[in-house]
């Protein structure tokens, strides 16, 4: 019944596969793919509307399975699209936990406008929650600090590049130079570890 040799729903499925396969944290928003799926949905819907009216008029039962099939295809496309958006939203949320309230430039490029909006909203509500959670102590708690419960207060790190001097909270100044090994408080160097300047030795 389809006009091309492609089946209904293929494009939507490709969209998901693409997202699943990409090695980046978030691949660029596939504008084109989404539009094509939407067009497909629209085409199916229009065909269905046309046939439904003839069915209403003629009462031809032979059209019935076709109608159902088209409807199922339409539903599936919709589900795929939603899954695509939902998965991206999940990744954007993870982004907030990993990188903090500011989206890195290269990732920002691959987000579309509503997604950026979503990120900002999410960030805002998370910040609001963190403020309220720490209300008793009078200080907001930074929940993003320890994503995995730390085993020890201190960690052993190896310096991967020349960073220069780094001052700890207690005033100790530490000279971070490539290929030196240090034993430092976890809380204070975690951000450096995440930036890749220090490497945590297990």
């Amino acid at each position, binding site marked *: 019944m389809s006009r091309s040799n492609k089946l209904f729903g293929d494009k939507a499925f490709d969209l998901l596969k693409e997202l699943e396969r990409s090695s980046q944290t978030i691949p660029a928003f596939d504008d084109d793919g989404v539009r094509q799926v939407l067009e497909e949905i629209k085409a199916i819907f229009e065909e269905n509307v046309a046939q439904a009216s003839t069915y209403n008029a003629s009462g031809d039962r032979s059209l019935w399975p076709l109608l159902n099939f088209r409807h199922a295809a339409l539903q599936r496309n919709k589900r795929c699209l939603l899954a695509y958006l939902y998965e991206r939203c999940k990744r954007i949320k993870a982004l907030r936990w990993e990188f903090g309230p500011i989206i890195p430039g290269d990732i920002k490029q691959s987000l579309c406008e509503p997604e950026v909006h979503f990120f900002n909203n999410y960030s805002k509500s998370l910040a609001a929650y963190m403020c309220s959670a720490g209300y008793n102590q009078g200080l907001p708690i930074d929940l993003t600090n320890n994503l995995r419960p730390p085993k020890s207060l201190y960690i052993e790190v190896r310096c991967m590049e020349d960073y220069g001097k780094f001052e700890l909270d207690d005033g100790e100044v530490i000279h971070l*130079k490539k290929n030196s090994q240090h034993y430092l408080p976890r809380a204070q160097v975690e951000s450096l570890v995440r930036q890749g300047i220090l490497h945590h030795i297990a």
Partner: protein
Amino acid sequence: MFVQDLRNDFYRQLVGKRILIVVNYDIDAICASRILQALFKYDHMLYTVVPIMGVTGLKRAYGEHQGDVKYVLLVNCGGCVDIVELLQPAEDVIFFICDSHRPLDVCNIYSDRQVCILGDPSLEESIPAFESIFYDSEGEDEDDDDGDVGSDQEQQNNDSGAGESDQEDRAPAAQRTTKMSRLERHEQRILKQRARRQWELERDRIMFEYTQFSYYGRSAALLVFELAWKLSKDNMDLLWWAIVGITEQLLLGKIESGAYTLELEQIQSHVSRLTNKTNDQNTMSASKISFENDLHLVLYRHWPVTESMRYSRYASCQLKLWTLRGEKRLHELLLEMGLPLVHARQTYGAMDLVLRKEFYSMVERLAEKYDIPDIVYGTFTLSYGYRSRYAAADYVYALLSIMESVKKHKTPEDCFLEASDALSRQHKQLLTAGIEQAKLLHAAIFRQVQSSLEARQVHSAGSFFYYVLQEEHAFFSYPYALALLARFLLRGHVATSRARQAPDLPLIASCPLDAAQGMCLLVGIAPVREDSPRTFFGKAFEQAAQKSGVALLQDFFEPAVVQLRQSDLTRFLDALTVLLT
């Protein structure tokens, strides 16, 4: 200053402080630093580990951290140089030195606060007394002014006549000794100066005697392990690292075999104590250290037996395995052992289980007959899991070759850290790679020895042999590999040489280091017959360089390893010949 009570005077002092650990490039130092790191981790002490190579490295590393740290721990470096003089530290910086190089610098020994040497002074040999080497300038009334000035200037004063110096001293002297006549004072001055000169001569003699020979003290890793033991924080891993540290000393000839045997006994008691303490019954996870007699064959657990025999210095040189006759003799030996060639030529691990079990006893039985009695030595093996079983020597060879596997994309520091990682059991693949690398190194050494001996490239200069590699070499441009090569070569040469005094002569080997800069590396190897690790090369190199006017870079902490310009090499060797005859 010596610190004997490591627990109270060293460790307790440091608890809660931040410390900079400076580690030399050798395996003993790596092991010691790993043990220290483990200790510091238990007590949550912040530390920074910096690997360094040579005196310039030490200066640079200290310069970078200057002002930030108050406690510096030097592992296997810095004991033989005057630390305060070299680094010019601030008043409140304290250095702890854990160094196996000897002789220690006298300024470090007699520093009253800033430099603390970890170790027992009673184990040290013939440290000159304080009075005999340091001039007590306060005791001098008259010479107060020029007491601190160098002796050269003083002698000049002396030569140019007393009149001049007298005038300088007139003002203060006049106040004090108005009663004494001019002549008397003059006489007294001269007497004093003569006594002073005699004292200086005596001091130079004492200092020469003290610094003449360089040798090695106790392994730093072992020293630190004993600290861990006294703190009751020792475990199997730490003990194993200490064993690797002392095995390095044995394999690189830094320790007499007698001293090694004595240490073995102590280690054995640690082993049995810790084995009883850990009640980990699970074979997979438990590590077990066991003492056993083993063979001086390189990596034989990871290599075919024939290869291992051929590439081991001792066996190879005794049987002259690089010759056709030697090869025949090896086959004879295998035949008599009842080890089929099929098995001898495949990896040890794949050999028949029965043969594997009997291998040691078979070799031991025939050792006397084939003139390889010293092939048996006591050592420790570490086994964990079902398959992993390593002798301490395997670790040492693997780490050595990791440490010297510098390539374009791998800096020496990378290699150091990799070697340090390979020590821990979690990074088994690093160790395995290191063992493979070590095999390549030993095969290369053997081939080099074979071709050099066939081409008769070891020359005699009367009082020593010398061997000059003409081209930069992927393996031998590093101190330890070159030293291994030179030791093999010397043994091989002595085995083939007919000269009677050959076993008493040392070998000096050189290899270009960096073709672009025209530098080359020079190592001195003690004679074959010498068992003690004492060498005179440090001092001899220094004097030969002085005499020939060659710029010598004694940057390494190993005194027998120096760098110099390639173009100066012949001149230097000539001067050395003159000096040593």
